[in-house]
């Protein structure tokens, strides 16, 4: 039975068939409605997006945060600059336009050639950069002639600027385009052309200073011409940063240092560790690095044998010389080797093994106690006591006083220096320690190396009667309280008395630098940069100090002010300055007096 006539089945089938048919018709309706939406209702939208148009996303770069000094003086900010472009399609004669522009601002002939060459290659609506970072007066000249010059287009941009040129350059650093490794840093993920901090605070605080990028969607046709902006999300400026530097002191100190070829001065507020001044000379001008072309300037910096890029306050390592004697004396007192009555006779030299160890004073100081030994900076006294203390105990005290350490401050590339000990020598040279090396270390020579910031911290710890002062460069909102190193109390009291005598009693090495307006205490240091031969020691030139600059001793001074309840600690280092007393101490005096004057 091929053909069926089951009535009931057919009626079910008919119902279902009709239902299916209407289902399908309605589906066609839905699809038709959808096509109506796309092709009629939204047609205009798609037409704009159509054929020749596509959408590009442009990143809006954020403005970098400012840097302020402790008194809210701007140290780093962004200035508006202007770039001049030429658009080939807007001028009948690009050569003529460039010539007219050249009459206002000089454009290199070779640059002009390049621009004209370029204009033949690129699309005719593409902007070609003619001048970069022109200033206001140049802009005004162009603006007033703009109508006469065809095809000129001026766009605004921002450039990092440092208000005080080289005054705080080492500390703040500078910005530049990221290099290949830096491009992967997370905070510049989508901004490969963003200028980022390359040194100093600018580098340490990149994530804070940079801010957030914005973006705009633009419609670009198939030739790359921008049709319109579709959406825009503005960028967010980076955070401002306030540092502890007092620009006035910094400027003042730098001026004093500039009389010498190379040196540094650090001034700290003992109460909170704030670094008020951290000047280093020679320095560089970050603005000249930022403004292109900078090749000439870069080359001059790199060729300079005094290496202006080095931040001597934290990267200069010097034998501390006699400024190290406080540490040795404190170690002696704490370990019971000496008290105020312990005396040693200085004949100008002592022998140990088959070697002679000289005092700086050839004739000797005579009988010395610890007060006089520091006041007159007698070497022999310290040779004698160091033999009894031993290098390891000296090293421990030196570390307690902040030497041989990298501080937890946002200053990149600090140099640690060396506080030698038996273990250190074993590890470094795989050699045992010689007794003579203890003697040389005791007067801050030999292996001992410190940076000027460390010396300022050491002085702060002494001046504060043993508070564990930590340096600080970013202005803090909260009061800072340092813990006290109780075991050094007694020793520090004795040493501070000695340091008072250094400056304020006759025969004190810095007596000539004593100040009436800002009385201070301190210690001079003169560190050898090379071994002095016996023949030289006897020679006429040596006594007259008429030696070649590079061979001269480094001059150091550390000190604090005022004498009662000290607030400021200083360290001054003048490279090859001769002696601490003659060169470094006067600078410290000037800085103290200036700081004192600012207080009133």
């Amino acid at each position, binding site marked *: *039975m091929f053909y069926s006539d089951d009535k009931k089945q057919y009626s079910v089938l008919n119902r279902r068939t009709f239902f299916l048919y209407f289902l399908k018709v309605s*589906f066609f309706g839905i699809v038709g409605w959808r096509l109506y939406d*796309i092709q009629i209702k939204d047609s205009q939208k798609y037409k704009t*997006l159509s*054929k020749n148009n596509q959408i590009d996303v442009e990143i809006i770069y954020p403005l970098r945060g400012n840097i302020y000094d402790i008194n809210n003086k701007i140290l780093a900010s962004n200035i508006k600059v202007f770039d001049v472009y030429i658009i080939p399609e807007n001028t009948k004669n690009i050569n003529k336009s460039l010539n007219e522009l050249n009459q206002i601002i000089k454009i290199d002939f070779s640059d002009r050639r390049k621009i004209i060459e370029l204009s033949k290659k690129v699309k005719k609506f593409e902007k070609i950069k003619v001048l970069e970072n022109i200033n206001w007066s140049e802009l005004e000249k162009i603006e007033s002639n703009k109508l006469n010059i065809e095809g000129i287009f001026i766009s605004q941009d921002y450039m990092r600027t440092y208000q005080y040129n080289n005054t705080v350059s080492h500390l703040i650093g500078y910005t530049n385009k990221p290099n290949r490794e830096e491009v992967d840093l997370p905070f510049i993920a989508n901004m490969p052309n963003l200028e980022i901090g390359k040194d100093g605070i600018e580098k340490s605080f990149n994530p804070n200073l940079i801010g957030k990028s914005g973006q705009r969607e633009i419609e670009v046709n198939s030739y790359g011409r921008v049709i319109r902006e579709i959406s825009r999300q503005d960028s967010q400026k980076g955070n401002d940063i306030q540092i502890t530097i007092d620009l006035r002191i910094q400027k003042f100190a730098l001026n004093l240092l500039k009389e010498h070829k190379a040196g540094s001065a650090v001034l700290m507020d003992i109460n909170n560790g704030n670094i008020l001044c951290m000047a280093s000379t020679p320095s560089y001008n970050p603005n000249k690095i930022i403004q292109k072309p900078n090749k000439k300037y870069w080359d001059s910096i790199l060729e300079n044998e005094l290496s202006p890029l080095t931040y001597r306050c934290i990267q200069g390592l010097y034998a501390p010389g006699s400024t190290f004697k406080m540490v040795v004396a404190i170690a002696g007192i704490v370990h019971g080797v000496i008290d105020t009555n312990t005396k040693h006779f200085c004949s100008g030299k002592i022998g140990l093994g088959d070697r002679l160890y000289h005092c700086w004073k050839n004739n000797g100081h005579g009988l010395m106690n610890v007060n006089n030994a520091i006041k007159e900076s007698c070497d022999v006294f310290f040779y004698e006591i160091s033999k009894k203390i031993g290098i390891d105990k000296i090293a421990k005290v030196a570390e307690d006083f902040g030497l041989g350490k990298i501080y937890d401050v946002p200053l990149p590339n600090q140099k640690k220096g060396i506080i030698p000990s038996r273990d250190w020598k074993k590890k470094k040279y795989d050699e045992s320690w010689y007794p003579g090396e203890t003697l040389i270390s005791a007067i801050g020579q030999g292996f001992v190396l410190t940076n000027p910031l460390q010396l300022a911290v050491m002085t702060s710890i002494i001046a504060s009667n043993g508070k564990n002062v930590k340096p600080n460069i970013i202005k803090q909102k909260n009061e800072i309280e340092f813990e006290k190193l109780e075991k050094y109390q007694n020793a520090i009291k004795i040493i501070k008395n000695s340091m008072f005598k250094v400056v304020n009693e006759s025969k004190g090495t810095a007596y000539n630098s004593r100040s009436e307006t800002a009385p201070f205490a301190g210690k001079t240091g003169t560190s050898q940069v090379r071994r002095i031969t016996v023949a030289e020691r006897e020679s006429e030139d040596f006594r007259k100090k008429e030696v070649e600059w590079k061979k001269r001793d480094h001059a150091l001074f550390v000190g604090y002010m005022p004498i009662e309840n000290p607030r400021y600690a200083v360290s001054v280092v003048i490279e090859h300055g001769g002696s601490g007393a003659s060169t470094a101490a006067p600078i410290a005096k000037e800085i103290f007096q200036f700081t004192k004057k600012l207080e009133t």
Partner: protein
Amino acid sequence: MLNKIQNLNYLLIFLVILISFIGAAGLYSAAGGSYGPWASRHLIRLAFFISLAVILALLNIKYIYQFAYVFFILSLLLLLSVELIGVFGKGATRWINLFGFSIQPSELIKITIILALARFYHDLKFDEIKRIKNLFFPILILFLPFALVVIQPDLGTALSIAMLGVLILFASGIRIWKFGLGLLVIILSIPLSLNYLQPYQKDRIFSFLNPEADALGRGYQLIQSKIALGSGGLTGKGFLEGSQSYLQYLPEKQTDFIFTLIGEEFGFIGTMFIILLFLLLISVCFYISIKSNHIFGRILSIGVGSNLFIYVIMNISMVSGLMPVVGIPLPLVSYGGSAMLAIIISLGLVLNVELNGNLKKLHNA
């Protein structure tokens, strides 16, 4: 014989030819105003397949009825052999070489599924339909090819097989609540079946479910396809005036995305015209179904119409962003032999039903 030729449904044949010619015009434009490589072959295939369909229409429907299961099993074997080639040969494929022609068995199987189901319900007494055990065989007929296509994996075709099954089973008079039950079973079996899938298969399913994750691939295609449609507006940009630059973003402009090209060049009027032509073609199938007085013919015609409907709806929904982009061509318009062969042959069967179904007096022929 002559009588039969006179009684052929020439409206149906005309619609097939008209739609195919529109397709050829689209292919001509897609090739940048050239008959090669697609338009000319499209038309040659049309001529060949139409002749084949007419010959098929003139056969006695008894033979088609008798061989329905055989056709189904043969095409299932073809599909299986594609799978085996995929397993033992050089990677997955959807194609098989048959008598020098490259054929996609997954397109042919849809037609033989319709044939097999039509025969099954023809043989089944109406009272028997409501029995649960009589669901077993039709579900097997659907499930075997479905499973083979899923593991290819050709999720677009698998989905269309599933939809075809639902529509035919509905048309044959299955109780409505059984569909609800079936849906429940499917939903419950999803987490279970996911456990048996290979990781790469899971990836494919999930990327199919969430094409946005692949924004630059298929998501981008979709945006470009909507721009092409939308920018056509009411009347279109004109023949051969469609922006080729956009279509360059559509790698399948001659196959799955041909509708967007037509939409761009002929506008809303053009797309509506095609949709109406398809609706008319489906209506003819339904008309023939209703007119037929045997179950085999009825189910066969509804099946073929539904198959056509699924192709059209899926393709247009896909290019207009109503559903994810799965590879489904627009019948008779898109370039591609297998789908065209399957569609025209199946319409040949419908022609046959009309010639053999409305002759009540041949009751015991």
